[in-house]
């Protein structure tokens, strides 16, 4: 699963999400992509599940690009632990996404195969998404 190799701070604040994706909101590599419609966190497990769903559906027919990276550590206190005694340990990693962000791109596969693969990937994600297609010039 995806996680940073090197980090500057072990634990981060929860943070607030506002606004829309100003960068990473257009298709850059593939012909089809998944655009997220709300803000939220996407865990490294969800990214991996979506990637696997896509690659298994297209088999050898296409190439997948992952446009997000889970670089935010999320902590959790151990079970049956009393409150206090400091922040919990890092449990998993998430990518913070804002509306409009392209999460995945797919290229090199035909329309039907691409739509099938991307709809399977959308089913693995926790946020409402839309499949977008490159506009032909």
């Amino acid at each position, binding site marked *: 699963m995806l996680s940073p190799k090197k980090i*500057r701070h072990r634990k981060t604040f929860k943070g607030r999400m506002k606004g829309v994706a100003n960068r990473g909101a257009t298709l850059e590599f593939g012909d089809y992509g998944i655009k997220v419609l709300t803000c939220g966190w996407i865990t490294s497990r969800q990214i991996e599940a979506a990637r696997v769903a896509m690659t298994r559906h297209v088999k050898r027919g296409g190439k997948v690009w992952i446009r997000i990276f889970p670089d935010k550590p999320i902590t959790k206190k151990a079970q049956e632990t009393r409150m206090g005694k400091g922040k919990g340990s890092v449990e998993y990693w998430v990518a913070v996404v804002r509306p409009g962000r392209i999460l995945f791109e797919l290229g090199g596969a035909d329309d039907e195969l691409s739509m099938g693969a991307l709809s399977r990937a959308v089913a693995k994600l926790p946020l409402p998404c839309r499949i977008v297609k490159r506009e032909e010039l």
Partner: protein
Amino acid sequence: MSTTIVLSATVRSGSGKGVARKLRAAGRIPAVMYGGDLAVSLSVPEREFTRAYTHDGANHALIALNITDEAGRTETKKVVLRSLQQDEVTGRIVHADLYETRKGHKVSVTVGVHLVGDEPIGVIEEEGILQHLLHEVEIDCLPEAIPDSIEVDASALHVGESIHVADLKLPEGVHVHTSADTTVVAVLAPRVEEEPEVVETVLEGAEGAEGTEGAEGTEGAEGEASES
């Protein structure tokens, strides 16, 4: 050569986000036209403009813009679309920049790069993956000579071969801005699905006790990763 698209526009007097929002609510798109003597603030009908952009190729074609001013006079200007702002979520066009062309002066526009011909040999016989990397190129040419698209025939490509911008066959009088060594299309070798490696996260600049804590913090995640 691309066809000329006819669109109507009206001169707008106000500016700012309030005026722009009211225009959008009324089904019009705020736009600006420059390149001539003065920059002119305009508004264009959203439906017509969006249709011209998505279906008729208004992003590279020459547009004959019938501009109606506040006094009701109509003037026709030849323009090209210079830039477009779209809503990140809905894709709705928010603003358009139009560039007024002058006779005998070259304009720079972005045209699509389309694949023509059969599937590459590398895809049919060698199970390669066709990768179309460059979908549009910026070109310089006279307004009347803007091509509809640049066509690329990739049917002779084997696995590991590619076509670059320098190999493109361009119409006469067209000059490409995009770097000549940029890859347009390539045929890649098929890749077997591989599981990404689980990497241990290292705290940057960690030393002594803190470093140990950093390593401990990631232990949980790593352990779970190996379980799944």
